[in-house]
């Protein structure tokens, strides 16, 4: 399925558009949507269809291609920092400039990389993911509504 452009008019302020209807509203009954009768079964098919679409797989792989390496890198860097600080304090104590030693720089480096990762993630999400995800959102909801499942 390719995303249609039927929802273009809504893109002006999409994030503050009317709260979407659907799954959530009936969620407290606890009945899985797929078992709620024919209309709901059709709605479940919509999600399968969207999940298999090229557009969705592109959004998903863009998201994963960023977060998986990012999580691996920041977590490894943090664990390396904690483990080095506890197992090799003498390395961390090596002076760099004045009273500032390697450990201080590594600690401040953690702050710095956290801010940089945050900036990079937000930029990536805004430029590479938001628009496509939003189009998919409206398309999915249109499709679901068309089949009478989730409106």
């Amino acid at each position, binding site marked *: 399925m390719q995303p249609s452009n039927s929802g273009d008019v809504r893109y002006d302020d999409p994030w503050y558009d009317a709260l979407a209807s659907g799954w959530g509203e009936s969620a407290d*009954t606890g009945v899985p949507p797929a078992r709620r009768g024919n209309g709901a079964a059709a709605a479940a098919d919509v*999600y399968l269809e969207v999940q298999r679409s090229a557009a*969705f797989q592109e959004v998903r792989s863009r998201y994963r291609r960023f*977060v998986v390496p990012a*999580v691996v890198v920041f977590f490894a860097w943090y664990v390396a920092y904690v483990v080095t600080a506890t197992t090799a304090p003498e390395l961390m104590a090596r002076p760099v400039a004045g009273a500032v030693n390697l450990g201080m720089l590594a600690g401040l480096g*953690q702050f710095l990389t956290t*801010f940089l*990762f945050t900036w990079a993630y937000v930029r990536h999400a805004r430029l590479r993911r938001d628009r496509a995800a939003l189009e998919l959102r409206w398309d999915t909801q249109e499709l679901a509504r068309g089949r009478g499942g989730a409106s």
Partner: protein
Amino acid sequence: MTVDHRTSALLLFSTFVAVTLGITTWVSRHRHGSAEEFYAGGRLFSPMENGFAIAGDYMSAASFLGISGLIALVGYDGMLYSVGFLVAWLLVLFLVAELVRNCGRFTLADVVAARMRERPVRIAAGTSSVTVSVLYLVAQMVGAGSLVALLLGGTGEAVRAWTVIGVGVLMVIYVSLGGMRATTWIQIVKAVLLLGGTIALTVLVLLRFHGDIDRLLRTAAERSGHGEAFLAPGLAYGGDWTARFDFISLGLALVLGTAGLPHILSRFYTVPTARAARRSVVWAIGLIGGFYLMTIVLGFGAAALIGPDAVRASDASGNTAVPLLALDLGGGAGSTGGTILFAIVAAVAFATILAVVAGITLASSASVAHDLYASLRRRSGEPRSEVAVARVAAVGIGLLAIVLGLLVRDLNVAFLVGLAFAVAASANLPVLLYSLFWRGFTTRGAVWAVYGGLVPAVVLVLLSPVVSGSPASLFPGVDFQLFPLQNPGLVSIPLGFLAGWLGTVTSTEVPDEARHAEAEVRSLTGAGAV
């Protein structure tokens, strides 16, 4: 500390309490009593407001007073906490905030239950959420008791007991009358006060050293009596290998636990969209990062200006380092400046505790009403009655926390915060990540992941030196200590992930393709999000 400090501090305490009660009344003027409003404040907060509220929810008195105090006492090793508490937010930003906002409604269990058989999953996730919350709550309340006693100079039993009761009553009032909207505004006010106070003190410290950080560090190192070693790791956790592993364990719990804290997860539901949730986390990271950087300056500043010996003499765990620093920066004891700064710091610390406990109480009452009650008694689950249950649950949790807080008020409960993070990382994080990212995850896997992390974490603590077997434990008289570490994270977090995997591969249940598709599409696009 003279009577002047106490009077002005008490005056400021009362002002804060009056303002927050005012907010609560104002907010609950025309409430509709809907679940949306009670748990999520109507989902209409802006990213900036929510970012401040997240920061207000997260920065506890333990950070403000505890970390700075620790740095003042042991130097570099205290700084490791600041780093861990901040870096944890990357995990929240990358993997949790947006997806949770898109998939869930009010609680952690919503996200997991979307793909699974609802009842067992809700009961499991609800139980672990309430456990985490109560641990954290008791730690904060006991902290409040000793803090107020310390700051007001009275160490009497009565002061502590009444503080615990007072804090408990106030948080129940905020939550059960004002719901998420009042809680959020209290957290915003607190975040502004806390950041304002911290910035003022940091600027004063830097002015004292004419902006020369190198001299600040050198003075701190000289004054500490440890010399250069004060500025390097090892003073607190550099002993035997048990101490080192303990620190690694704590470090893991800090960085992985934040993403599983129920009161943090519930904050993402207060904004309209996933993008707003992302932007609120960015605000929060900025505020929290700046705050923890300043706690480092305050810690070394206290070491340089007060000296670790004077800090230790006032309170063995260093909690009074920042108030003493404020007194000194304002011109010393007896001066007007010192009195005012001291009173401000004391009031800010008190505000901090109140805002944090309100957030936790709300999140745990949501878990009780929305997950546990709704699963155990399905028939009466219409929204209005669920909110009524949540209000009653807030009262119940408040009472439980007061009783527990009174029982353990004389004990050193600092480990409870680390334990709450460890339980959140072991019981809540695996199930959350598996259900967001693993196609084949099943109901049995979810239930096993929760209990497989929760039970080991709690049992290991019961068998650890914090409970028995050493002079500093809860029960110094007996010895059933089998596990050497104080923090169970190093063992229990992998166990939680392992149990979830094991439960999934051994279950005969075929994962529902359609519901996985629904969860995945919803989580990444926001389709059908409430």
